[in-house]
């Protein structure tokens, strides 16, 4: 834990704090159909034409059911579109590598995963996807799923801020305005910046390079028909293969990576994601990519404060997120810096900590910070392999996801997830001031509690249910790369990541086979839509409520006490659910590693 790393952490925090207010104020304008921005001269005409083409009346607002239905319809159609494109990839243009069409289960998994802002990848991008698939089938969702998330958060905030109202906004207007005024302009600048750092952006076929030092790998022997040959013991017969050349990835990368980070999508252009030299060329690109993951989510808390006319509340929510972020990054960094006792005993790289699975370019701190940030938010981009983290170091990203990614969180999704915890905190502790619970003057009753808890129930049931199923099924165990607690962690992480719509992986798991593709795809759908519907119902219910005026007896939703309460609620109600599973995975692994056992 070097001084320079502390300095970088301080810088990271300072920048996040500084952009929160200006970006939040900009969001206030973007998320208001009548808002004014400095881009109006350029974008307004395009916006108007879009509404005309879509047949949308921007003056009109809808109730929560209409809003949710529009969102579901949009998601379903766009998911089908991507499924079709991936299935027909071989017949579509811009495919210099002549990649084949994707299998039905992989197409399903990928389409669902990108529609839901998860971007779980059961494939290697550079060896599976054509340029057209990357640019259209996938990148469209990088924008749209991010815009959908922000629109949903805005709808919930409107529900909280309004009173005796039926409507919570117009989904189509939100979608268009967020994409045109927020995501596209920032990504345009961001992509150019990334190119300046050395990221590629072209349509060239892959480059082939001769290796300076050819090397030999063992591959399964195949017969004439391409079938693997099994030996007498039933295992595949392995033969040596000499590798003499390397294929270097090309393509329109920067344009996709910009939105991948800003929209907390995380789906890598390459399999190595942000650990690939092209996808994350410099320390600066690494730093700015991390900032961009948190930027919108952080600004949304300011939007919350502004809309509810209680900026203290916005900052209290921000502070709770920040405290959880800081705790996570410190634990993860400490665990990785401390390293692996087995390495220590062998006298290997003691000073550097646990460098296994990490880019030497980034080192311990930037890997730990990246891992924390990407799992606090539902980004899922990685610049190090979480699978190779120490037991505790790897538990931090996992727990971050299992908390519901409410620590800043995915764009929009983080805020609406955290607001569910706010409602629960207010309900549980609100009674302790001697009034029936109120959130910003609105009574929290049976209905609100029901829908809020439904989201927690869905999260727990999906993550734990699927993991439990996988852990005792043939297909589940077959996909594992490691045995013992680490294997359990791989499964737990996968279903957490998909249900939480994160998309990062404990890389050991071999997930591209029908069972995993399907179950993970289902977890993704459950984690997104079964969460959103109750949350929108909450927005609708809150919008209709009357507001009780503030008094000295009102439950305070700003200040240190509330922040502490919110953190406590997230940890007690959120984290405790996963403690037994975590105990069997990373916790046991941690203690076994201390005794020198590995898996």
């Amino acid at each position, binding site marked *: 834990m070097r001084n320079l790393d502390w300095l970088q952490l301080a810088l990271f925090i300072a920048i996040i704090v500084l952009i929160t207010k200006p970006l939040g104020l900009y969001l206030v304008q973007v998320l208001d159909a009548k808002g004014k921005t400095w881009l109006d001269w350029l974008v307004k005409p395009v916006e108007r034409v879009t509404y005309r083409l879509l047949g949308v009346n921007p003056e009109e607002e809808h109730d929560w059911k209409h809003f949710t239905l529009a969102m579901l319809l949009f998601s379903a159609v766009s998911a089908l579109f991507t499924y079709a494109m991936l299935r027909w990839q071989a017949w579509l243009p811009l495919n210099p590598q002549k990649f084949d069409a994707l299998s039905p289960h992989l197409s399903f998994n990928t389409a669902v995963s990108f529609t839901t802002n998860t971007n779980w990848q059961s494939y290697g991008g550079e060896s599976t996807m054509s340029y057209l698939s990357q640019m259209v089938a996938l990148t469209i969702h990088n924008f749209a799923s991010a815009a959908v998330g922000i629109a949903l958060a805005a709808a919930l905030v409107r529900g909280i801020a309004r009173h005796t109202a039926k409507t919570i906004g117009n989904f189509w207007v939100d979608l268009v305005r967020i994409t045109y005024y927020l995501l596209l302009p920032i990504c345009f600048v961001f992509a150019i910046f990334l190119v300046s750092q050395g990221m590629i952006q072209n349509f060239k076929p892959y480059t082939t390079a001769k290796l300076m030092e050819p090397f030999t790998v063992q591959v399964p022997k195949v017969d004439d028909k391409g079938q693997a040959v099994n030996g007498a013991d039933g295992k595949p017969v392995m033969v040596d293969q000499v590798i003499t050349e390397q294929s270097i990835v090309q393509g329109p990368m920067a344009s996709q990576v910009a939105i991948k980070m800003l929209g907390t999508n995380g789906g890598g252009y390459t399999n190595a994601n942000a650990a690939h030299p092209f996808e994350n060329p410099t320390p600066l690109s690494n730093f700015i990519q991390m900032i961009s993951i948190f930027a919108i989510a952080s600004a949304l808390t300011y939007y919350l404060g502004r809309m509810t006319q209680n900026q203290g509340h916005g900052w209290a929510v921000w502070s709770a997120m920040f405290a959880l972020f800081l705790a996570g990054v410190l634990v993860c960094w400490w665990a990785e810096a401390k390293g692996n006792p087995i390495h220590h005993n062998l006298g290997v790289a003691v000073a550097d900590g646990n460098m296994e699975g990490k880019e030497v370019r980034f080192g311990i701190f930037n890997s730990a910070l990246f891992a924390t940030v990407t799992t606090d938010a539902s980004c899922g981009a990685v610049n190090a392999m979480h699978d190779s983290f120490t037991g505790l170091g790897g538990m931090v990203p996992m727990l971050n996801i299992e908390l519901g990614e409410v620590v800043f969180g995915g764009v929009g999704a983080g805020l609406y997830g955290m607001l569910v915890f706010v409602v*629960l905190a207010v*309900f*549980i*502790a*609100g*009674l*302790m*001031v*001697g*009034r*029936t*619970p109120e959130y910003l*003057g609105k009574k*929290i*009753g*049976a209905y609100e*509690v*029901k829908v809020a*808890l*439904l989201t*927690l*129930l869905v999260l*727990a*049931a999906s993550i*734990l*249910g699927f*993991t*439990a*199923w996988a*852990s*005792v099924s043939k297909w589940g*165990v077959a996909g594992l790369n490691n045995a013992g607690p680490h294997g*359990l962690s791989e499964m737990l992480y996968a279903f957490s990541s998909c249900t939480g719509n994160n998309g990062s992986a404990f890389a050991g798991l071999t997930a591209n086979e029908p069972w995993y593709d399907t179950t993970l795809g289902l977890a993704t759908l459950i984690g997104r839509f079964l969460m959103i519907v109750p949350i929108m119902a909450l927005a609708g219910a809150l919008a209709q409520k*009357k*507001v*009780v*005026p503030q*008094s*000295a*007896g*009102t*439950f*305070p939703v700003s*200040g240190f*006490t509330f922040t502490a*309460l919110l953190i406590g609620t997230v940890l*007690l109600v959120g984290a*405790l*659910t*996963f*403690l*037994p*599973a975590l*105990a*069997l995975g990373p916790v*046991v692994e941690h*203690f*076994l590693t201390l*005794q020198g*056992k590995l898996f």
Partner: protein
Amino acid sequence: MTHKAPSLFDWNIAGPAIVDAFKKLHPRAMIKNPVMFVTLVGAILTTADIFLPTHERGVIAQIALWLWFTVLFANFAEAVAEGRGKAQAKALRKTRTHSTAHKIRGDGKTEEVGADTLRKADVVVVRTGEIIPGDGEVIEGAATVDESAITGESAPVVRESGGDRSAVTGGTRVLSDEIKVRITADPGHGFLDRMISLVEGAKRQKTPNEIALTILLAALTLIFMFVIMALKPMGIYSATVFSVPVLIALLVCLIPTTIGGLLSAIGIAGMDRLLQRNVLAMSGRAVEAAGDVDVLLLDKTGTITLGNRQATEFMPAPGVTEQELADAAQLSSLADETPEGRSVVVLAKKFGIRAREIHELPHAQFIKFSAQTRMSGVDLDGVQYRKGAADSIYKFVGSQPAAEIIQAVEKVARAGGTPLLVATKAKVLGVIYLKDIVKGGLPERFKRLRAMGIKTVMITGDNKLTAAAIALEAGVDDFLAEAKPEDKLALIRKEQQGGRMIAMIGDGTNDAPALAQADVGVAMNTGTQAAKEAGNMVDLDSNPTKLLEIIEIGKQLLITRGALTTFSIANDVAKYFAIIPAMLMATFPAIAPLNVMHLHSPGSAILSAVIFNALIIIILIPLALRGVKFQPIGALAILQRNLLIYGVGGVIIPFLGIKAIDVIVTALNLA
């Protein structure tokens, strides 16, 4: 009957409660409480496990035993809370003796019938010594009535036809005179019947907040059931056997049994605490609403000021001594039977004026107050002494009064008092200062209310000037002057439009619409039947300042619920640290450092957690019945205090408790 708080573990209550705790094990009763139902199922499954072949039989049997205790303790808590009500209901029932009634038939003759045959609109006559056969309204006559059966107050009260004191309650006794009563309630629906069923909790329905809380607890239970069910297969993967009793023990420890077991006791105890202060809440909903009140409407007369104005000062005209004025004032007030008139006589005594009786002055001719002259007085030895409002006295005297008199009149009016002038035909002698006497201690109580965020509004028929002066003296936040009954209703509606919750207390028939509209409407027991039916609480003491206590009890009820919920959830941390290492120790001995409490063995760890989980219910019963203390120190300060005690304390206490139990369990060689 008396409404003293029974001691928490009175054997008369605890004894039957133990029996009830077992009776409540009936699944139909248990299913209403999802948390305890799951615990019951867990207890049954664990008990079944004792009979399976295992070498851990001793520990499993003990776990099963304590799981049963958990359920029984929760049932006991509820039974104790109910028992306190039942004891009171029993006392009430004793008073409902089978009485007979003298019903007046259509032809005007009376006939003797059983009280239980009376129906609405029947008319009965009740004579001295008889028990009033049913709730009704006095339509003829006046009588003193002993209402101690209901109020516990032994002093008899007057009940008379017309006005706001016409309501009588069945079961009370006429002490003197004879009244005709029109029955207003069918048998079984009278006030006493309602009171009995309310205190018994027979018709107790869950309040909105209780329903929401039950949903929270049920959902948490469901989530933890997922957690436990998922643990079994994950254990299989990890080559660890999680036995059913251990999984059930973990489940029961994690689900919020503490609040789940005490929730209904808290609600019943809240209504009970009101009853101890002689307030009868018609529903738990009303008690809950009391905690939420934002605005308090208080009638000036009787609530803020003593019922009547009193003479406090004589202000003589120039050339008149105080003695002379006092003498004249006393003479003019001798025949004045109003409290104001009496207070003039009392004040005069202080100036050495001997008390005179009317019969001492046979020649005197007393002039009664009349609406035309608006004066009263006496003609004695040719002198006409008169007392009255300023303008009528001016007219009586006929000449312009001295400037000092006019000034004195204005001064009194501006200070919120009522000036009364005393005069002879010859000249104005001076001014009597009639003052509204504000009850003692009110500004402090209103300050308490302000600290709770509650606004007080005084309602009065007085003019604005007078109202403002009294409002200032009493320390209320706002006032509504020259108020008519419909103004009161309009004010309530307006505040409710703004999202506020309103509480008021009233007694008259003209209060009924406002009582019905208010979120908390407290009717005084001395009030009319209409008022009692419109409100959702009845104050048996008819003490208007009771509203403050009602609000505090409402708040206390809500705080207790929140505190125990927080405590219950916070407890889970320690229970995890007790049970998880114990479960994994056999397969992964390396996990030993996670056993931060250094519990003796896996068996003792799990057993200690289960025992703690059961005992904490018993330990917290007194708190649930008594309620967490409420202090008017502002929401933030209360929140901080309670979060510290029940949140942070809820995390720490079970660590200590489980460790202590583990030491005992180990010492006794139980596991």
